[in-house]
């Protein structure tokens, strides 16, 4: 998934006609001051760190300014901050509006119902998880025939909106529904959605785009920046690769088997650190690349747990043996292999020829790799 920063989300909002406060992005304190001075951002204004994590208000990443000088100071204080692991590179300056109510609104997928769901609450401006369930409304929307007027009227009534704000909601919901579908969004969220005078204004914007739809939206593919350098390389090579804190590298195929492997390793005291899911590849070169990527993460030991289906055991064994030859001697690590399924015999034979024994049972093989990481040998 591609999470858009607030200002990018608001650019998408603008394209679909969602009402927004006047505002602009600054990447330096000087730029922030200038945006106020030239009237782009009216005063008083809000200066918000552009990070993906929530809780910015409590975390000091949102400040207010009544003058250009204050805007500059606020931007200076926020830019460069490390907020929940993210470096703040941009601030969004926006006019501070005088609002009468704060609402919550989002559209996302309800997996169980296999339908999009429009979630609203009259209690906006706070973390929605903290709102009582009875105060949250869920309106399913059928892709055929799409969001209807009667559904929009119902939501307005639930939120207690009438007159101007109700008409504003009708247009806003139309915009968000079109955005949700046309941009292949996983989530569109506005919290708070403010009642300002006779209409509604989106004070925040959270937009998450589905990765799988990148073939329709190449413009989003480049936006992800929450990956480690190795994860970024893996993405370019189309390898599922996640780095965490442990010291055992796990190469498996398929998310379920990878998770089950993790469960077993933890059971025996192991601490998995890098997960590499080969998925359904049938190309030994891709296996080689994946293994070399794993080597660069410097694991204490590596557990190869493959059940051959689309990915055949001999393909994996070939790619693995090829990669092992390319890792410098001083960077080598113990390897425990378990390969089962399609072409199992051929794969085991290739590994054996390279000096690696495949341990057939998951339990025994997991115990072996935990021991190897703890300093024993594989």
């Amino acid at each position, binding site marked *: 998934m591609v999470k858009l920063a607030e200002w990018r989300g608001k650019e998408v909002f603008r394209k679909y006609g969602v009402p927004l406060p006047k505002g602009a992005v600054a990447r330096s304190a000087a730029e922030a001051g200038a945006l106020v001075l030239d009237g782009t951002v009216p005063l008083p204004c809000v200066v918000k760190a552009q990070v993906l994590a929530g809780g910015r208000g409590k975390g000091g990443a949102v400040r207010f300014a009544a003058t250009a000088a204050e805007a500059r100071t606020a931007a200076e204080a926020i830019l460069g901050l490390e907020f929940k692991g993210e470096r703040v590179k941009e601030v969004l300056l926006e006019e501070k509006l005088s609002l009468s109510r704060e609402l919550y609104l989002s559209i996302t997928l309800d997996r169980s119902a296999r339908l999009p769901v429009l979630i609203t609450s009259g209690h906006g401006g706070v973390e929605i998880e903290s709102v009582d369930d009875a105060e949250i409304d869920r309106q399913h929307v059928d892709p055929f025939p799409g969001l209807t007027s009667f559904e929009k009227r119902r939501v307005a009534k639930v939120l207690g909106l009438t007159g101007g704000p109700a008409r504003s909601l009708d247009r806003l919901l139309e915009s968000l529904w079109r955005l949700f579908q046309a941009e292949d969004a996983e989530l569109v969220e506005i919290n708070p959605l403010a009642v300002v005078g006779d209409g509604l204004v989106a004070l925040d914007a959270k937009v998450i785009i589905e990765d799988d739809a990148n073939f329709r939206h190449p413009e989003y593919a480049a936006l992800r920046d929450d990956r480690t350098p190795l994860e970024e390389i893996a993405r370019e090579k189309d390898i599922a690769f996640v780095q965490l804190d442990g010291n055992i590298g796990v190469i498996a195929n398929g998310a*379920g088997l990878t998770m089950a492997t993790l469960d077993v390793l933890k059971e025996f005291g192991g601490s998995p650190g890098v997960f590499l899911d080969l998925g359904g590849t049938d190309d030994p070169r891709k296996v080689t690349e994946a293994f070399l990527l794993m080597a660069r993460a410097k694991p204490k030991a590596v557990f190869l747990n493959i059940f051959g289906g689309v990915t055949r055991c001999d393909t994996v064994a070939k790619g693995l043996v090829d990669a092992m030859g390319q890792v410098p001697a001083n960077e080598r690590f113990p390897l425990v292999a378990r390969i089962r399924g399609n072409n199992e015999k051929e794969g085991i034979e290739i590994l054996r020829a390279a000096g690696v024994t495949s341990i057939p049972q998951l339990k025994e093989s997991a115990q072996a790799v935990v021991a190897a990481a703890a300093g024993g040998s594989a």
Partner: protein
Amino acid sequence: MSVLVTRETRVVVQGITGHQGTVHSRQMRDFGTNVVAGVTPGKGGTIIDEVPVFDSVREAVDATHANASCLFVPAPYAKDALLEAVDAGIRLVVIVTEHIPFHDMLVMYHYARSRGTRIIGPNCPGIASPGAAKVGIIPNVVFRPGRVGVISRSGTLTYEIVNGIKEHGLGQSTCIGLGGDPVVGTSFVDALPLFQEDPDTDLVVLVGEIGGTAEEDAADYVRRKFTKPVVAYIAGRSAPPGKRMGHAGAIISRGKGTAETKLAALQGAGAQVARFPYEIPDLVAEIVARGARR
């Protein structure tokens, strides 16, 4: 009998001329499946391993009376391929293709449902009944005819578990890999009734994963309506919380979706719970020993 597929199932492979389509058509035939046709637009009139290829599903159905489809076409074209299969009257479609946008899958699911077509998948290994037929990509070697049903959200983990059952000297009636995508055509709740009604299934192994509420829904169904023994395993118990899909997702699955909630729900519904994949065969064997036929 078996679930959804029989010896009479006549399979058309959409995307048969691609590498995976060709390889798995052969493996399906090795399994004993009646693969009667392939479809690749523009390749009509050719033959792949004795299987005639057509330009459209309609032509394939007219010529071969195919009644099930196995779909290997790339994600950007999968929606169209599914609509085509439904429109041609195919009533069971196994979608192997991964990375289909869920917005596409929503359209596919609701269109198929309105026309009475069952989808298995997407991003799934498919369905297999040893001795009857296989539609999908589960390795043939893991199977052995028997009376254990398997329903799983995973791919390779399913192979692992089915293989474990075989190595324990037991066999499977039917195994369905549902696929792990956010929107699947057939969920646990949709699949369980089929096994409930299948006289050849004595018990069911249910393999779930963290995320979503499909396992909790399944537990609810098992508690209310399912009378056969259930052995359950949930993968990802020790997975890191990972990157969550914003707050809205949490609102939908309030108090559900973790390994703990899933296991508790299934245990509460009377299922035997395995902590690790290799515990499953033992639990199954115990149930069989207690009286269910093998």
